[in-house]
């Protein structure tokens, strides 16, 4: 293993935790290293207990770690909570009058005042950490320059250096020896959170309309769409509620615009009727659901995978849907494009199921490795609009695949009729039972076709063995690292990461599960919903579930420990 340093920055909301982590991310990258940021924050704007974990590595880092090597507590009151989380050989910093190792008293406020502004204590703290890591401060300067002008640039610049200078003078050199990152050449990666990656993926997938109502942790997706969307011609509108948001997306999609909404479980609950509408009207639309712990308001800023079954069967009546579950920012970028494309090709709602953990995970990525697929449109225009013998366009024409060529309103010579009632091929409402039967079958045929295009699960590890860990969505990288830990301990363990849960890759999973002595699901929920799903879809029995439902994500070491403790 190469370098693996876990920095934790803790403070009240409003104390600048994010600034520190942002500066460290960039300096670390500037020094040629990689990182993974986990965000842990409360549902409040000031005070409380927020933390970000920046795990630094010489290889790309894709999961967090529970114990910190370096803790910066911007608010010393939080020490009782965070200090126990500092691991063997680690150390902590806080602005306290005096302290014993592993805690060091750093006069952050004093340095900030000296730099010209008391609010820069966090930047001074950043300087301390930079010195410990031995990373160049210039990257931070560039950030300051990009963000602040004049005077305030100077103050930041000074505060950072005061921190580094203090560290040099007062911190034991052995700390630096332990954590110094050897010099490396840096590439030019970008910084991407799960939310950003998903939103940019949607844009790459040709999304041109987005509507939303803010809801943590889905709001971040909306922000990117609202801010970055215009440069690729997207129209964003904040809706009066979630019902309106999805209905607007469906309206826009009816005109042929690729459309998305983003929300969390509670907001999605309000979209359920409109989801069913999209199913009936065969309107392509993408819905990003970033899960958080429920029921109801639950824990608004924490993580959970408790809405899996809900999302799979949400909406009255029967209709096909696509549900993708990215496991990393890269996958979010990729699957969001796929959702945009398949939603239109199959004229179905496509869901992107993430959660607060993935939404707020930040990593560095080489942008050139991200695939940007050319947008293939599936809308018929002009001469390619098929017409019936009477010269009519049939929006819901019966076809073998179940997919009817989709034209959009405004096409000269035809009208496009869609209805929430059961309808005839031309879209007009009907109460005819034979038509009903054919239309049900037409819609369900699309589901069968969609199943043929399933994104296969990712399998890692030996082709058979004693343990199989299965997860979906955000747990991907944590499970992967857990596998590596357990493998190092001599276990033959493999993992299955599901990137798609509907249509379910039943054949693949059915084939894999029996090849291992014990098959477990790893789920950030209490009821083992994935295990149930596998049982339904594959008819194979899952031996157990490792659950976490306290609002926090799994971490590899703890997950490995869970496996051991349960004797699996």
């Amino acid at each position, binding site marked *: 293993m190469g370098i693996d340093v876990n920095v934790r920055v803790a403070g009240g909301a409003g104390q600048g935790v994010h600034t520190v982590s942002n500066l460290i991310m960039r300096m670390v990258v500037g020094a040629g290293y990689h990182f993974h940021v986990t965000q842990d924050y409360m549902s409040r704007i000031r005070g409380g207990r927020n933390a970000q974990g920046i795990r630094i590595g010489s290889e790309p880092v894709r999961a967090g770690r529970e114990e910190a090597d370096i803790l910066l507590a911007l608010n010393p009151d939080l020490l009782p909570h965070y200090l126990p989380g500092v691991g063997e050989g680690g150390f902590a910093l806080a602005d306290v009058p005096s302290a014993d190792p592993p805690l060091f008293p750093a006069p952050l406020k004093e340095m900030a005042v000296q730099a010209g502004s008391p609010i820069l204590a966090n930047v001074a703290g950043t300087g301390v950490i930079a010195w410990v890591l031995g990373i160049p401060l210039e990257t931070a300067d560039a950030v300051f320059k990009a963000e602040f002008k004049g005077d305030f640039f100077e103050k930041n610049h000074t505060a950072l250096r005061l921190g580094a200078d203090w560290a040099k003078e007062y911190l034991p050199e052995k700390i630096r020896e332990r954590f110094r990152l050897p010099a490396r050449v840096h590439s030019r990666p970008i910084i991407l959170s799960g939310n950003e990656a998903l939103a940019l993926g949607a844009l790459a997938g040709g999304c041109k309309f987005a509507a939303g109502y803010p809801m943590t942790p889905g709001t971040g997706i909306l922000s990117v769409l609202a801010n*970055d969307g215009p440069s690729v011609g997207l129209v964003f509108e904040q809706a009066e509620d979630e*019902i309106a948001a999805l209905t*607007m997306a469906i309206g826009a999609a009816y005109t042929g*615009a690729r459309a998305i909404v983003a929300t969390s479980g509670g907001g999605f609950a309000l979209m359920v009727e409109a989801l069913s509408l999209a199913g009936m009207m065969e309107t392509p639309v993408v819905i990003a659901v970033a899960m958080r712990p429920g029921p109801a308001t639950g824990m608004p800023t924490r993580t959970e995978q408790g809405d899996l079954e809900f999302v799979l069967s949400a909406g009255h009546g029967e209709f096909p849907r696509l549900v993708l579950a990215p496991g990393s920012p890269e996958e979010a970028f990729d699957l969001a494009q796929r959702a945009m494309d398949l939603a239109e090709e199959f004229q179905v709602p496509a869901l992107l199921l993430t959660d607060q953990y993935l939404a707020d995970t930040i990593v560095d990525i080489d942008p050139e490795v*991200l695939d940007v697929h050319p947008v293939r449109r599936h809308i018929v225009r002009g001469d390619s609009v098929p017409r019936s013998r009477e010269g009519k366009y049939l929006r819901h024409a019966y076809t073998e695949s179940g997919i009817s060529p989709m034209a959009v309103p405004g096409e*000269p010579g035809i*009208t496009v009729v869609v209805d929430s009632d059961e309808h005839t091929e031309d879209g007009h409402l009907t109460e005819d039972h034979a038509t009903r039967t054919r239309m049900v079958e037409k819609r369900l045929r699309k589901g069968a076709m969609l199943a043929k295009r399933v994104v296969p699960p990712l399998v890692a590890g030996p082709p058979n063995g004693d343990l199989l860990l299965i997860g979906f969505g955000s747990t991907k990288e944590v499970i992967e690292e857990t596998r590596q830990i357990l493998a190092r301990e001599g276990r033959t363990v493999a993992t299955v990461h599901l990137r798609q849960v509907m249509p379910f890759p039943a054949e693949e999973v059915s084939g894999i599960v029996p090849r291992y002595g014990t098959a477990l699901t790893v789920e950030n929920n209490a009821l083992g919903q994935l295990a149930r799903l596998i049982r339904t879809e594959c008819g194979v029995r899952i031996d157990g579930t490792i659950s976490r439902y306290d609002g926090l994500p799994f971490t590899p070491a703890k997950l490995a420990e869970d496996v051991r403790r349960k004797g699996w």
Partner: protein
Amino acid sequence: MVGRFDTDFENAWCPGCGNFGILNAVKKALEATGKRKHEVVLVSGIGQAAKLPHQVDVNVFNGLHGRALPAAAAIKMANPGLTVIVTSGDGDIYGEGGNHFIHNVRRNVDIALFVHDNQVYGLTKGQPSPTSDAGWTGSLQRSGVISGPFPPLAVALALGCGFVARGYAADPEFTADLMLQAIRFPGFALVDILTPCVTFNKKNTYDWYGKMAYKLPPDHDVTDREKALTLALEWEERIPLGVLYRKEKPTFEQLHPQISGPPLFERETPEEAVRTLLRRRQAVPG
């Protein structure tokens, strides 16, 4: 006579229903716009009124109960070249869809809203709607409606709606003219249309409306919002018909920086633009 917008779709309304007059007016108004069928979208929710779009040979989006407006607004945002008209019921627009009504008045997208205001839930067999008169006995409120009526025109005016009018199903010529004005008005335009439900509303009948309704005089000042508000609240003794208020202001489409240009479905996504967005997130500035 077969009109340009006629369809042969079976009509399921009760004989004598006010909706026939409204359908008639809609077709007249559409004729007058000179639009062709592919340029028009009729949007509705669910209810007897909401079935109207099926009777007109244009593009149709017959969505969920209460949800016509957000669909319509987005259709217009996505393709402003389309003429977008919502024609639906009082329960649909003011009841289930009340939140969309208030916020779409504010949004001021250039759409026209025709509400078939029969003061009852027709399709579900006679329950009171938001506009039912207090004391009226609907099928779920045997002891009479308690809530005060929802005054659509007054609420629209309070919300700053730029075009506020009232029509009457029994006078399709007159109503068609209001509709035409509403369609031509740049921005959100409301025409609430009194319309008897001959089956379930035995209070607000042709007779009753006939006695109560009067046309605003030609010299009514349509720019006087306070006057319009006073008129909009008239109901107990008489009910004004016509354009109560009209004032143009910039529409949503004009104010929204991304709407002008080609309709959304025609916009390309150059790979390079996406790459630029990615590169903008460069970890190390410069």
